[in-house]
């Protein structure tokens, strides 16, 4: 003990600091772009998302110009369609969701007192995927090839190649790619928040931002996969004519609406909660007191997270579902107003209890909340089915959704930008410009969008490219257009404020707003996050632990050094944040860019049906990922433990549920399981809408189906046995079992293939064979991935990188197999036995 906390000499301290700085330093020159550090990735991510927002905003201005006067011919109808589709798509997928991932990647590590997110390379991969997918989707409009069927891509319009062109494929493939990036971000956030908090930061002391982000990341896991499943069905129909949404061959366009909105409604809250999370950080700072009702905020975040999944059908009130179904969703839509209201009242209570400083961030925050409340109230109106039948697909809905999203998301994000800018640049943004921007945006917004309620109630449908004069819409539209330009002027003031050169201004003070949370310790000049990892004893450590900043920056807490030359952080326990492991994370690397770009290239080539290019890109991506895994993960440390300071020694390796990798696999597979559940939902959905959903077509062979299920179970059993033997040190037996399990998997896949193959099911003939085939293909693709993992473990064992004590790879693969077993058994029992049972 005494050795660890003995006073260090000045030289020793300097040497430690130098080593730490070197380990975390960014490469110079063009290699700067290979950085994986959360500060750079967060900043790039945020800047890219903002740039996409400006692009989509420009499209909106074009649309407003077109609608300024009746019978206008400024834009063609087709370009107008592309503009509104891309506007909605980009704002939702390329701005609203990614901006929160950006903010989270940037802020969470310092806020939790961590050095990094647990998987920095995954974060970089996610960013590069997003950037490439985004540029591809946005760029399409310059080739007159943008999607034009509306941001929710309803079939049969969007499945009709004649009317929707290649734009729909660009939408489907470009966005699927970005959805994968979002799920990667969710994995990173959940593991980071649960396992990488500073010691002592128990869950009752966690910053509210982290609570919100935890819930949001959980929501992503259940909301995005249904859309990925939907995209898969959709693209199979467009590419290979499998009739999932074609009513003439037993399909149903409504299935797409279900899958889209199971994603689409929670997404609104996935966007809203992180923005409100920023408010939960800003309001206490400018009230100079702890938040009133911390537990109530947790209630609101969790409650909203759950209830938001019971709302999706309120987008489908006009589709002719039974009224009792509509009523369930109407009820849930009303119920979600309760937790949403709770958060607003908590903020008001905090402001009343403290002495509010009306700074620029508070102005944007409170102004945004006022707008959001109006949007929330019109939301309660349209959640009532009879009212919705009147307002559906009119400008009333356009007004409602912009009030919710701009008030609930854009304004708080700008508030966050003004609040957190000193963390990027050590300087504040201009207060004067900020106030000017706020009033322009606030007034412009209301002038633009309030009249839309009225034009909607007067019957103006959304998405029309023009309207006749003299039906009572002229003035309302002209006012909206004027407002839109005032609003845009405000946004430009913000952009100018961020971009104007500030090098002549002196460096700002440390923690300029006198905030209480840990992120304000971090120094923008340094890349290491925190100089040493502190022990946290309060919700607002900078207010309550008086000399914390001095001690942290003086390297007096954990891990002040990087003597072995690794980027290191601490893993702590979920509930009480007791330190349990030293986590070595990946550093600067090309491999993330290569994997992301090659994966992107595969998706892009697929859009244009360039099969060979697709295959080449996919193989490149596969090799890059294997290289990444082989060289960057599951490394066996040179010693079992290391001294982290303050007399504490922690292990350098963990496997199974103690390791962050195991949790990442678990979380990924929960998302994957949700996508699978969506396909199964599709199967039973077709069963409910038809009297005989097989349409007299012979179903999969029951014997082959059962054989496949049994063989998959056997392969799973062999994997579990392999892990057990390895732990007992029987390495040879483990290798034998791995090979045996691999062969069994191949046999199981062949049996699975024979099930629909032997009766000659033709997936283009009717939806029944199509849905059976898609389920089988889903299992076979997962089985193929499973065999790759088995071969990988075998190779690792032969290379001496997988040992009885260091079995992280094997234990993660066994976890994958638990999920594969469930997927295979459900699939083959369902397709083999259900038709007979009915």
């Amino acid at each position: 003990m005494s050795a660890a906390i003995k006073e260090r000499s000045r030289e020793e301290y300097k040497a430690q600091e130098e080593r730490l700085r070197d380990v975390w330093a960014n490469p110079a020159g063009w290699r700067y772009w290979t950085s994986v550090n959360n500060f750079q990735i967060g900043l790039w991510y945020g800047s890219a998302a903002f740039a996409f927002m400006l692009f989509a905003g420009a499209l909106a201005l074009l649309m407003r110009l077109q609608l300024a006067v009746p019978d206008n011919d400024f834009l063609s109808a087709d370009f107008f369609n592309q503009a509104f589709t891309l506007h909605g798509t980009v704002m939702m997928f390329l701005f609203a969701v990614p901006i929160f991932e950006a903010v989270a990647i940037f802020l969470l590590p310092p806020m939790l007192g961590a050095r990094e997110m647990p998987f920095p390379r995954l974060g970089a991969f996610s960013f590069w995927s997003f950037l490439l997918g985004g540029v591809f989707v946005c760029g399409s409009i310059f080739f007159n090839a943008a999607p034009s069927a509306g941001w929710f891509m309803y079939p049969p319009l969007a499945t009709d190649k004649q009317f929707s062109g290649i734009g729909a494929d660009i939408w489907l493939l470009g966005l699927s790619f970005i959805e994968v990036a979002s799920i990667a971000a969710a994995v990173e956030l959940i593991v980071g928040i649960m396992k990488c908090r500073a010691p002592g930061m128990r869950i009752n002391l966690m910053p509210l931002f982290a609570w919100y982000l935890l819930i949001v990341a959980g929501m992503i896991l259940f909301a995005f996969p249904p859309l990925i499943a939907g995209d898969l069905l959709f693209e199979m129909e467009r590419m290979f004519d499998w009739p999932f949404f074609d009513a003439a061959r037993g399909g149903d366009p409504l299935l797409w609406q279900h899958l889209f909105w199971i994603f689409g409604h929670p997404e609104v809250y996935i966007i809203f909660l992180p923005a409100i999370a920023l408010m939960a950080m800003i309001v206490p700072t400018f009230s100079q007191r702890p938040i009133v009702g911390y537990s109530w905020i947790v209630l609101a975040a969790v409650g909203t997270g759950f209830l938001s999944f019971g709302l999706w059908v309120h987008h489908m009130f006009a589709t002719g579902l039974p009224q009792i179904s509509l009523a369930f969703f109407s009820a849930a839509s009303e119920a979600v107003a309760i937790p949403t209201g709770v958060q607003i009242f908590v903020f008001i209570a905090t402001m009343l209890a403290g002495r509010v400083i009306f700074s620029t961030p508070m102005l944007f925050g409170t102004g945004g909340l006022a707008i959001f409340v109006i949007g929330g109230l019109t939301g309660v109106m349209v959640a009532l089915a009879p009212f919705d039948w009147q307002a559906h697909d009119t400008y009333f809905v356009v007004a409602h959704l912009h009030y919710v999203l701009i008030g609930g998301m854009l304004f708080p994000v700008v508030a966050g930008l003004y609040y957190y800018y000193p963390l990027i640049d050590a300087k504040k943004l201009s207060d004067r410009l900020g106030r000017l921007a706020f009033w322009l945006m606030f007034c412009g917004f209301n002038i633009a969008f309030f009249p839309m309620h009225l034009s909607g109630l007067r019957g103006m449908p959304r998405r029309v490219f023009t309207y006749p004069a003299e039906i009572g819409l002229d003035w309302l539209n002209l006012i909206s257009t004027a407002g839109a330009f005032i609003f845009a002027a405000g946004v430009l003031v913000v952009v100018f404020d961020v971009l104007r050169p500030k090098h002549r201004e002196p460096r700002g003070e440390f923690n300029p707003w006198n905030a209480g949370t840990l992120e304000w310790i971090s120094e923008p000049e340094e890349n290491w996050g925190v100089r040493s990892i502190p022990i946290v004893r309060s919700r607002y450590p900078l207010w309550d632990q008086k000399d914390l900043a001095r001690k942290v920056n003086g390297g007096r807490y954990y891990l002040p050094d990087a003597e072995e030359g690794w980027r290191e952080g601490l893993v702590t326990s979920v509930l009480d944040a007791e330190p349990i492991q030293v986590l070595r994370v990946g550093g600067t690397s090309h491999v993330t860019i290569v994997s992301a770009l090659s994966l992107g290239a595969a998706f892009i080539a697929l859009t244009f049906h360039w099969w060979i290019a697709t295959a080449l890109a996919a193989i490149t991506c596969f090799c890059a990922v294997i290289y990444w895994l082989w060289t960057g993960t599951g490394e066996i440390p040179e010693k079992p433990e290391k001294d982290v300071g303050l007399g504490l020694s922690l292990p350098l390796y963990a496997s199974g549920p103690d390791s962050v990798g195991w949790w990442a696999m678990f979380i990924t597979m929960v998302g994957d399981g949700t996508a699978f559940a969506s396909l199964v939902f599709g199967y039973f959905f077709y069963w409910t809408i038809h009297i005989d959903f097989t349409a007299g077509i012979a179903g999969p062979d029951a014997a082959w189906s059962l054989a496949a299920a049994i063989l998959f179970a056997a392969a799973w059993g062999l994997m579990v046995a392999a892990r057990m033997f390895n732990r007992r040190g029987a390495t040879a037996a483990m290798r034998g079992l791995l090979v045996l399990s691999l062969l069994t998997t191949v046999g199981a896949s062949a049996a699975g293939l024979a099930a629909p193959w032997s009766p000659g099911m033709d997936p283009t003939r009717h939806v029944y064979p199509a849905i059976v085939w898609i389920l089988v293909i889903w299992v076979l693709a997962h089985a193929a991935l499973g065999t790759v993992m088995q071969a990988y473990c075998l190779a690792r064992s032969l290379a001496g990188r997988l040992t009885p004590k260091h079995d992280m790879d094997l234990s993660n693969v066994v976890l994958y197999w638990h999920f594969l077993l469930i997927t295979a058994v459900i699939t083959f029992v369902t397709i083999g036995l259900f038709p007979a049972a009915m």
Partner: protein
Amino acid sequence: MRLIPKEIETLWTLFTAPVVWVAHFLVCYIGAAIYCAKPELVGLSFSAVRAGIAAATVIALSLIALSAWLAWRQWGFGTDDPPHDDPTRRDRTLFQGFATLLLSGLSFIAVIFTAMPALFLTECIR
């Protein structure tokens, strides 16, 4: 065998009541949707659907009440007032209990909201 579960150390209990809400919501929605799509399958009247929803609601509300009682116990039967922000295991447990109790309350109301349509609707009109 004990009837009331022991207090356990996990984050998952926080989600008990909302998960009950999810289950209840799905039972009601899927049950009614299948009945309205294939009324001949079970051969029952719509009153049976309403009775089923009523039964599901009673079960769900009882489970939530149980979860609320467990949360109240975890909260130390309300002996301490929030904010529960001390850096101790005790305050962490009290915080968990209080937050779980609040969520039970919200879920209780949300289950009642979901069940209400069955009071008024008497057939599968579209």
